[in-house]
């Protein structure tokens, strides 16, 4: 009887082990470390995966919104299916997820898609947009603009990678201390001629509060 129970216990353990291995096979060559499993959280996935590769289209434009844990939760199955299994997301012109991003996403699913990490350290608070070039670039230009506005992109005539690109452009992309006449602001406004990001691009518009931060940076002199 005791031998039979032990056998059954071992069988259950083997089944659990089989399920874990099977899950990894589903995800191809992605291997996740134990350390990552303990520190993974929605915030980590948002910063490493969603912000640079997804939020340009999946922001607050009305469809799948990955900007918060709450808005992401209803779409967990779709995200897993398209980004981890079939890897059909992100779509062109955005690059496929890199190895690190896939590991973060896989770890998040393996950990049960937690909002906060198992690690006792407090979660990293979301980065607040500030009126500095570094912050604007990281939070707006990189996810929404630089895919095209770089020296090798479709919009190579208007690169947005450095302050000099903006301030020294003959197109007057940024006129320091004059946000109202700066091309960057004019194309972001609702109803603008040649509105950016283009409406048919699928990329979420830059929000009114984000535009205000950019205007503050320009009116402060667009220095750093």
């Amino acid at each position, binding site marked *: 009887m005791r031998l039979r129970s032990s056998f059954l216990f071992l069988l259950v353990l083997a089944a659990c082990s089989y399920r874990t291995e099977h899950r990894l096979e589903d995800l191809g060559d992605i291997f996740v470390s134990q350390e990552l499993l303990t520190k993974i959280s929605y915030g980590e996935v948002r910063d490493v995966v969603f912000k640079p590769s997804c939020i340009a289209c999946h922001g607050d434009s009305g469809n799948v919104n990955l900007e918060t844990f709450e808005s992401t939760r209803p779409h967990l199955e779709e995200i897993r299916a398209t980004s981890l299994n079939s890897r059909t997301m992100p779509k062109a012109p955005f690059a496929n997820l890199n190895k690190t991003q896939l590991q973060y996403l896989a770890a998040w699913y393996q950990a049960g898609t937690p909002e906060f990490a198992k690690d006792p350290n407090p979660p990293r608070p979301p980065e607040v947009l500030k009126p500095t070039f570094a912050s604007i670039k990281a939070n707006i230009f990189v996810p929404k603009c630089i895919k095209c506005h770089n020296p090798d992109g479709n919009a190579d005539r208007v690169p947005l990678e450095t302050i000099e690109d903006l301030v020294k452009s*003959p*197109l*007057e992309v940024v006129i320091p201390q004059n946000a109202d*006449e700066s091309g960057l602001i*004019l194309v972001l406004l609702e109803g*603008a001629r*040649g509105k950016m990001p283009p409406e048919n691009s699928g990329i979420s518009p830059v929000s009114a509060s984000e535009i205000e931060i950019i205007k503050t940076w320009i009116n402060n002199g667009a220095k750093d």
Partner: protein
Amino acid sequence: MKKTFLITLMTLFLNVAMAEDINMARAAELACHRIERLVTLRKIDESYLNNFSHLKIELLTQENPESPRFKVTGEQYNSTAESAKSIILNLNNEGKTLGHILSDGASEVGPVWGTKDPVTLMENSLHFVIENGPSNNEVSHFLVDLSSVSLLQDQTTGQKLVKAKMTNSFDNKILLVWLNIEGEFIRYEITQ
């Protein structure tokens, strides 16, 4: 003495070389952008955008690095013998607009285009020259020596197309650039 002379000569050469940072086609394209900006800022009326038809560009002799290098005249559509309502833009050697002058004259509603305004369509025709001029010897004369661009409508194929007609100051050749109504390049032809 010889060394001083050589340094002076090199400085002069560098000044001349640096004076022309951009070519004529790029200056014309930047002037188009400036017209759009002036309309957006409501500094000039929308007829400068919607009735835009013709552009002339001249290279100026610079008195100093801050003085204008390019004079671009943008004219509105006008089928009469009168001079057209126009805008003159002065650009420096980097293509920044230093100022503009409006000139009153005849203006008519030009051909009806699609969603794109004629200034944008002209810009797109200039993109062809800017992109292909460096590698195409024939097109390069329109990059470096562009003197005018006219925007025409071509319906000979039964489809409404944009035909940009460009001249240069190097020879008597004409560059025709066809775009679709969305401003996408279709083909080009160089004629005598």
